[in-house]
């Protein structure tokens, strides 16, 4: 867990962990540069700790709104071929990807 009083310090292992979560392959030079830059940005972001936010409601959206409803009616959707036209690899009406299930 992060220590609220300590400036953030991201390690090489942290960067590798986050890169895996983000599905991003980083080269060796990218990794070290990323570590330095993230630390510098997080040090700047650390000023948020100066403020007392006890009891403050979070704002997730600029304009408060909940549950925008529409009538439950059938509307046409895009033709399948148009939606598949940008696929990097397809078979018939499917996107093709590397095998993910063992035989």
């Amino acid at each position, binding site marked *: 867990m992060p220590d609220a009083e300590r400036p953030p310090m991201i390690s090489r292992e942290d960067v590798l962990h986050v890169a895996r979560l983000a599905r991003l392959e980083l080269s060796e030079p990218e990794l070290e540069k990323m570590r330095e830059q993230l630390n510098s940005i997080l040090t700047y972001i650390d000023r948020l700790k100066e403020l007392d936010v006890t009891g403050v409601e979070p704002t997730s959206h600029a304009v408060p709104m909940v549950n925008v409803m529409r009538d439950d009616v059938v509307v046409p959707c895009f033709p399948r071929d148009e939606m598949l036209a*940008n696929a990097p690899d397809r078979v018939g009406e499917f996107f093709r990807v590397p095998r993910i299930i063992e035989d």
Partner: protein
Amino acid sequence: MTDTPIHELADAYLRGETTPTAVTEAYLARIARLDDRLGAYLTVTREQALRAAAASDARYRAGTPLGPLDGAPLAYKDVLCTRGVRTTCGSRILEGFVPPYDATAIERLGAAGAVMLGKGNMDEFAMGSSTEYSAFKPTRNPWDLARVPGGSSGGPAAAVAAGLAAGGLGTDTGGSIRQPAAFCGIVGLKPTYGRVSRYGLVAFGSSLDHIGPFARDVTDAALLLAAMAGADPRDATCVEAPVPDYAAALARGVRGLRLGVPDEYFIDGMDPEVERAVRDAVDVLRGLGATVERVSLPTTRHALATYYVIAPAEASSNLARYDGVKYGLRVAGAKDLIEMSSRTRAAGFGAEVKRRIMLGTYVLSAGYYEAYYGRAQKVRTLVRRDFEAAFGRVDLIVAPMTPNVAFKHGEKEDPLSMYLNDVFAVPADMTGLPAISVPCGFSAEGLPIGLQFIGKALDEPTLLRAAHAYEQATPWRTRRPSVPS
């Protein structure tokens, strides 16, 4: 004709002095002559533009024009989907992407008769403040080619400033319409969050993204907004409120308006020429009959830090869709799905986009969520409360748009120094409040300076009215850059 505002073009069409085709051809000729130097466009849609212009000609001949935007040649930021026209977001990962539909904003402008000249350059996925992070090419500032046009909507901003489009569309998540408008000496309007449908806008930060116009003057900005604004069943975050007559609000002047000048928008290290131009502009507004008082927005210095938690967090989630499966780039030869996605994203995204994805993933990851994202959302509430308190006393905030004029290409190598350029821009995105940048002077070196107004939610009429009164009282909009060909 390539320096005429849209509302005057429409008058010229009505009087038969020129035609949409003649004006569109003039713009296309200027693009062909100058855009190699400027880099404003990623795609020029010449054939499509000429067809749309010919249809507009026919409507004017028949006496049935669609309104003031009929025959207006525009540049659209390449983050807005255009049916059948490639939409790259300035990224290699979408290099060949051809959307099957139009963004609502573009569909509505098309229905009003606007002519698309092409798709404007931008920082990759709208992340940046200089348009240097486009994967394809940088855009240059028409006032000084050694300088940046601002960003992320630098392409359409430079196009409008240089006479390569009569108007345009940008997007503003952390200043990306207003900052390039300031750097390029044009008008840039970010409407209230939800005022313009975001259907067909490729998402960056969904709670922060806005679409808005670039224009030569405030009247054109009002006309462009009017054509786009209003509810859209395809965007649930689009507000239902009726759309007022923005153009009718313009002529009412500023007499009796209460303007607030925030102390926190004049900071150490800001360019003294910018400060002087903005203070002079406030004097002009006072002279026109507005009352001016100091206000305080104490969390201004925290707003940018909050933004750099929330925007990357939302971006890391939105950009997860670029996995090499459904559209865009796929790197061949991977042995499994995760490797395919990880290598595709490594090859397809540039350094700034990777940085923001990493930052966003980090602040959302287990153990850090509350310390960063949770806290940032609470500070966002404090930023909102600052504005609510100020708007209890004044009708509009008036402030500098940026702390400095356009900087040189390559000048801001450090990511954080680039971010700091948007310190006065992000609060309006965080709060969703409408804001506009209008030209308010030039530095000694001849670079434009922007004046920012921020209004109450959905109060674009007052915002536009003050901006228009200031514009009409000052000579800045008549000065145009001369781009060497």
